[in-house]
């Protein structure tokens, strides 16, 4: 290894119960690939589009009327920080997918502002994903993805798209923003799948 800087420890605590290469953080870093969109709740909508073109849409009040869950999860960012025991409230993707008729295997997530990410549809099912609108007991702040973001904690946190606006169900996988830029297509932190050929 190269140069070590005496007396420098940095902000994070490095712990043993974390995925490889991660360190623990107490704060909640804000990472953004672009400006924070300012969204009008009157015109906000979330659209699930199936591979046949069938559209399932929810306005903000319709989304908030759905049953929501409170979950406590650990989150892991590809930039190496991890935050344990984060508390969220949101609508499970199982609820949103309940009446959706699909044979698709893949999902492309779209956000206000243009961000995209992709994952297998199976990774959105069975209690693994939410459209989250509250964090730590308060409405989700804009810089953290409010009014609503995707939450998929078993994958690196770039998959938990902020300012989520919809999901396209697809027969074929379509890499999103960071997946095209060099990050791993799937992104399992426990197998340290950070970069494209890891």
């Amino acid at each position: 290894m190269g140069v070590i800087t005496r007396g420098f420890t940095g902000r994070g605590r490095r712990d043993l119960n974390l995925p490889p290469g991660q360190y623990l953080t107490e704060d909640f870093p804000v990472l953004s690939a672009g400006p924070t969109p300012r969204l009008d709740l009157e015109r906000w909508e979330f659209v699930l589009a199936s591979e046949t073109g069938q559209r399932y849409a929810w306005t903000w009040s319709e989304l908030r009327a759905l049953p929501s869950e409170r979950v406590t999860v650990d989150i892991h960012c590809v930039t190496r920080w991890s935050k344990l025991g984060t508390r969220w409230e949101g609508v499970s993707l199982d609820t949103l997918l309940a009446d959706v008729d699909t044979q698709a295997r893949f999902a492309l997530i779209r956000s206000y502002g243009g961000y995209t990410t992709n994952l297998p549809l199976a990774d959105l099912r069975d209690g693994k994903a939410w459209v989250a609108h509250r964090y730590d007991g308060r409405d989700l702040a804009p810089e953290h993805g409010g009014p609503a973001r995707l939450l998929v904690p078993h994958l690196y946190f770039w998959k938990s798209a902020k300012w989520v606006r919809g999901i396209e169900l697809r027969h074929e996988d379509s890499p999103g923003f960071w997946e095209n830029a060099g990050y791993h297509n799937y992104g399992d932190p426990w197998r340290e799948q950070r970069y494209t050929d890891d």
Partner: protein
Amino acid sequence: MARAAVHRRLTWQPATVAQVNDETATARTLLLEVPGWPGHVAGQHVDVRLTAEDGYSTQRSYSIASAPEVDRLELTVQRVPDGEVSPYLCDIARPGDQVEVRGPVGGYFTWQPESVEPVLLVAGGSGIAPLMSMVRGRAGANSRVPFRLVYSSRTPEDVIYARELSRRVRDDRGLDVAFAYTRSAPPGWPRPPGRLDAPLLTEVGWPADFAPAVFVCGPTGFVESTANLLVSQGHEAQRIKTERFGPTGG
């Protein structure tokens, strides 16, 4: 624009802290020794990387404050409250400690004595650092290019290089320096504290029809509003070069 010399590809190089010098209560200059340092052009910066014993590392960019002619690499670091790197560099780093640097970088926000048009430098807080490299470089080259520096700080105690700037105003022919304060001014100061405004820039800057080269450096908000003021005074946008220190730094 700096001459298009072909650089070698840059990579991280070890750098040893040779000396530290407190400029103000919150800013410190570090003199670094970098074997094989190729020298720099005034206005350039370096990336500095710190690595902890367990391999955790992080990096920040700092403008080079030293003059190009002298074989020194000096960085002036402002301590950011709650920062991760600046508190280390300002409070803990001591001679003998090692960091890594990558650079020098930048060819856009640079000044060399071959340029002859008058120069207007506008600094907000620690944005003085790259502009100081230009002031020092000008003196080192015995340049007679007319320089005007407008330096905005919160209080007189926050002025970095205060003594050196007084000396240079006296000794460096063709250099004028105007100070402005945003929070509190010295007793008897002709202007009440406040943000840099058009009347002050008109009074101490260059008229737009002198077509000066303009360099503005500091926090993002300061740079944006200063640049807008200058454009509204008739300075051509392409003659105004800006370097924004991000809102978080750290």
